[in-house]
């Protein structure tokens, strides 16, 4: 199925992604070593000998350069080291689990973002300059003018407070998270809050690109063939309108990642974003570096996926 050239392309890109991840984590490595404070200073009273033992355990007694060499040696083996706060907890498995939780919410948000955004955008384009268009456009401006924590607050208010009061306590939504992966209800609300601002951006972009495409000659050709409006829009217009939308999937992924830092903290989701803020506040710098490494990998893979999607959607693009 895959040609030799495609495989080489894939291989090159994967190496590049891994390289970028190492580079990013290196920058963060040196960055966090500039940070004031330490994970151990907060400990009440610490015996100098014990502190020395801890420092030795984490190789903090070595020079920064030697620490870095050890760090790189670890990272190429997929070992991100050990938590500074919870001694003995290896970071890689911890973050892998948390990443899967974040992915669960993030992917739901992304699907929702693209789905809602494209539907709104297409409807607005087809019904251009009617009240439907104005409503869809207004919704999208409001959408990207609302920070996700504002949307989250409104949702919590609606579901956890008003719905509860209205149903006399029968229906309720509890902010929180059960088990590692939560329940569908617990996933949907944060995913909505996370995705809505970006859905607005997708809607705007889809509307613009759809209007552009609907003016194209090949849409007229498709109509002249006697195809129904539905087929003309789905088969001929939408696919071409998708091309610019795919372009923003990369930035969209970054947006969802940064957004998840806020949303996971609001909804108490045990994902990377919550871990990130917690470890920054507790000065667990090894985890901070680890989270950045994961994010660099995620962004790299998302961009690769975007490039692959291009070749699927637009046959003029070949690598």
């Amino acid at each position, binding site marked *: 199925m895959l040609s030799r050239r495609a495989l080489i392309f894939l291989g090159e890109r994967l190496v590049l992604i891994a390289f970028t991840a190492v580079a990013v984590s290196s920058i963060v490595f040196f960055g966090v070593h500039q940070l004031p404070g330490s994970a151990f200073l907060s400990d009440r009273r610490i015996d100098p000998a014990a502190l020395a033992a801890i420092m030795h355990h984490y190789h903090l007694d070595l020079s920064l350069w030697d620490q870095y060499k050890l760090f790189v040696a670890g990272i190429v083996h997929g070992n991100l080291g050990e938590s500074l706060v919870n001694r003995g907890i290896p970071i890689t498995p911890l973050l892998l689990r948390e990443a899967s939780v974040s992915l669960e919410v993030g992917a739901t948000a992304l699907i929702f973002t693209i789905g809602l955004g494209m539907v709104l955008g297409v409807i607005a384009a087809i019904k251009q300059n009617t009240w439907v268009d104005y409503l869809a456009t207004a919704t999208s401006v409001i959408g990207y003018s609302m920070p996700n924590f504002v949307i989250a607050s409104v949702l919590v208010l609606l579901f956890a407070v008003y719905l509860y009061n209205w149903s006399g306590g029968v229906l309720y939504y509890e902010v929180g998270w059960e088990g590692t992966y939560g329940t569908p209800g617990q996933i949907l609300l944060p995913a909505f809050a996370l995705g809505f601002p970006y859905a607005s951006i997708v809607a705007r972009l889809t509307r613009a690109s759809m209007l552009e495409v609907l003016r194209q000659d090949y849409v007229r050709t498709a109509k002249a*063939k*006697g195809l129904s409006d539905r087929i003309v829009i789905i088969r001929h217009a939408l696919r071409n309108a998708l091309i610019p939308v795919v372009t923003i999937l990369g930035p969209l992924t970054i947006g969802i990642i940064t957004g998840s830092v806020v949303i996971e903290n609001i909804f108490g989701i045990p994902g990377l974003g919550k871990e990130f803020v917690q470890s920054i506040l507790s000065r667990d710098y090894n985890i901070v570096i680890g989270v950045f490494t994961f994010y660099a990998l995620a962004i790299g893979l998302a961009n690769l996926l975007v490039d692959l999607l291009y070749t699927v959607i637009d046959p003029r693009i070949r690598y």
Partner: protein
Amino acid sequence: MTAPVLQVKDLKTQFFTDDGVVKAVDGVSFDLHPGETLGIVGESGCGKSVTALSILRLVQEPGRITGGQILFKGTDIVTMPGDDVRDIRGKDIAMIFQDPLSSLNPVLKVGYQIEEAMEAHTKISGKVALSRAVQLLKQVRIPAAESRVEDYPHQFSGGMRQRAMIAMGLANKPSILIADEPTTALDVTVQAQILELLRDLNEETKTAIILITHNMGVVAGLCKRVLVMYAGRIVEQGPVEQIFKDPQHPYTWSLLQSIPRLDADRKDRLLSIEGLPPDLIKPPRGCRFHPRCQFRIERCFHDDPTLMDVGPDQEAACWVTMRRALARDGEARA
């Protein structure tokens, strides 16, 4: 003579813009007989393309057909329900456009776009559709058609793309093929090939062709009959040979003068018509051509001429006609 397959009667298509109502097509009537080749000629903006789009009801907003009838085998397309028009599009009346690159969808295979034209109207299996697409590509003289069906438009040359468009048009064996400036975007040598192909196909399939062009030379290469349009109206019509030999409307005469000729005396400056086509929001009073006409008389300023018999099977909308104009000029010179 057989009954006409298409009758256009007093067609009016207007565009409702912010600046006013553009009367793009303003009372056009003509008949098309089975297997006939009809040319519609005029400068850009004279309403010839809008006429063609009106026939398939493909005029885009803010344009609307505001009057007249388009009778296809006796039924009026103008008042037909949308679904019935869709049935006719591509099946009975097919259309190909000026720029074959932009007219083909860049993200779909050429073969698929041809198959789609068939599947829109008949239930056929994918396999049958594919073999028929190959056959159609062969019919329009595309070499290695079996592998070419799998190509995307960007992998075709300009001429091949237009051939593919024609194949798509012929997919359902339509009774009418409307070709809107089919050669304008192509190289001169390719133009000739496409015209030859259309001529051959007309003979093979007996499909009637409406050829829309601004180029009188292209009409001569394909059509039996020609309509000359100016400012949304037909100003002259008749058999091609007759019109070429003895044009009666000054506009037709100027168009013919502007065909570059290899055998022409080099001192004869290539003549193009002075001035611009009129504003169709507020067309000039009287004959619409009079502001640009070098043979106009007093009457042309206030009296709007209609089509009148001026020769064998030939009609022109002119108070002067070239016969009298040239005679008058001859007298004046003498």
